[in-house]
């Protein structure tokens, strides 16, 4: 359906900012990259900065459309990873967004890569990449776009 074109390597022993990748859709892939189910089109190609208490939503592969509220916009966190040899290491990330679901869990395994959108403006604010049963972690979307050298699209 798509071909990986760029990814950001997670480095041990330093603070990372993003865990993200991007792929180019193959011709004929049955997708509409300008429309997110239950969310719709982005309100702007310009992201909105995440803020504490901002109400957000996302559509993910596993949990579908969920709503949440931003709890922290500058959290330093640790997430377990495996290197190419299967050895586990702890990835450290700085200044991440933490989200709690309203109600229930905002995300679970398989939702990584979901775009997190401000409910008031439908502008993108984060990219989901990890979490627990109660908290979801997202990169700031500005950091993701800068790391990948891409921009958002709308209609």
């Amino acid at each position, binding site marked *: 359906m798509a071909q990986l074109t760029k990814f950001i390597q997670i480095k041990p022993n330093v*603070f990372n900012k993003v*865990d993200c990748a991007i792929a180019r859709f193959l011709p004929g892939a049955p997708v509409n990259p300008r429309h997110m189910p239950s969310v719709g089109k982005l309100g702007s190609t310009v992201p909105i900065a995440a803020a*504490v208490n901002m109400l957000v939503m996302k559509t993910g592969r596993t949990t579908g459309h969920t709503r949440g509220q931003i*709890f*922290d916009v*500058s*959290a*330093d*966190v*640790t*997430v*377990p*990873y495996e290197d190419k040899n299967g050895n586990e290491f*702890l990835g*450290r990330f*700085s200044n*991440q967004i*933490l989200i709690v679901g309203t109600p229930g869990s905002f995300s679970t*395994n398989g939702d*990584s890569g979901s775009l997190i959108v401000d409910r008031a403006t439908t502008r993108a604010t984060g990219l989901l*990449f*990890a*979490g*627990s*049963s*109660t*908290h979801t*972690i997202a990169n700031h979307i500005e950091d993701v776009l800068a790391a990948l050298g891409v921009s958002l699209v709308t209609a």
Partner: protein
Amino acid sequence: MTTPGDLADLKRRVSDALLGKVLGVTGVGLPAQGITIYLEADTPDIRAAVEQAIEPLRLPVHVHWQVTGKFQR
């Protein structure tokens, strides 16, 4: 008075002291006044280990605790 820049610097020092070094700590953040330390579980052992690790920093702000559970991808 503690400025936002001061808090960010404090948070980084606390992160350096805890993340990957004290088992059970999942993160350090600034969601409210002071510094919040995120934990897999709120147990006396984990709190004691955190307090021992950050004691040399002599933090001038209040420390909050928040249970997140263990993070995974």
